[in-house]
């Protein structure tokens, strides 16, 4: 754990299966994330993160490291320009756990280069995505995820 690490936790009134779908189904992510996460979500597969706000644009790419629906998904995370350079890849882990009638979603982003622009970007980005996801699943309304950016 030598590289910078962030953890984000939110409790959502929805079943783990729905949260898994909300992260991995592009139809779903588009509605609260303004982005599509595209993959078959099998370990070893490639995944792509397409920004859909404005002009559709490939924003992140990576590999699926671990996939255990609906409780755990581990992916690598890199701008397309750094795809061939593993040293620049960071790692994102989604842990999904039922707690009573709520589900705890923990997003851990680590193996980030200290001082990198990615470090700055995600420290702003994940809280917005998770708040919007929670609102979308609980009320049917997404937040305007990137307003005020």
């Amino acid at each position, binding site marked *: *754990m030598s590289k910078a*690490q962030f*953890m984000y936790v939110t*409790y959502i009134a929805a079943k783990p299966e729905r949260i898994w779908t909300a992260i991995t189904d592009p139809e779903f992510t588009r509605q609260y994330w303004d982005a599509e996460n595209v993959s078959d979500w099998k370990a070893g597969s490639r995944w792509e993160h397409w920004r859909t706000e404005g002009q559709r644009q490939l924003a992140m790419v990576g590999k699926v490291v671990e996939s255990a629906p609906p409780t755990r998904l581990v992916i690598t995370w890199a701008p397309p320009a750094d795809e061939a350079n593993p040293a620049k890849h960071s790692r994102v882990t989604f842990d999904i756990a039922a707690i009573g009638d709520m589900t705890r979603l923990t997003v851990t982003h680590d193996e980030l280069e200290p001082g990198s622009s990615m470090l700055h970007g995600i*420290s702003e980005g994940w809280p*917005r995505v998770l708040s919007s996801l929670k609102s979308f699943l609980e009320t049917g309304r997404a937040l305007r995820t990137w307003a005020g950016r």
Partner: protein
Amino acid sequence: MKRIDRVFKALADPSRRQLLDRLHAQRGLTLGELCEHLEMTRQAVAQHLGVLEEANLVTTVWRGREKLHYLNPVPIHEIYHRWIRKFEHKRLGALRDLKIRLEGDIDE
């Protein structure tokens, strides 16, 4: 107590805000590391961390026998959406900028 009430209660204490600031500056600190440079007993820090964890403002992970603490900003973001953005964020931003220019830093 409702979840949002726990967040406001946790934020109402200056020592707890100080702990959040430390965890914002440096992630993954142990209780011992958090106690350094703070004029609080270890027991007081542990109690404050308990309140922050209850409010989901701090999350922890075990590494071997060490418990590492991380700031979890998601509830603060929810407050921002519910209580700040709704109330004319742009004009408030302009006022804040003016206050900073006139008074200097307003972190306190």
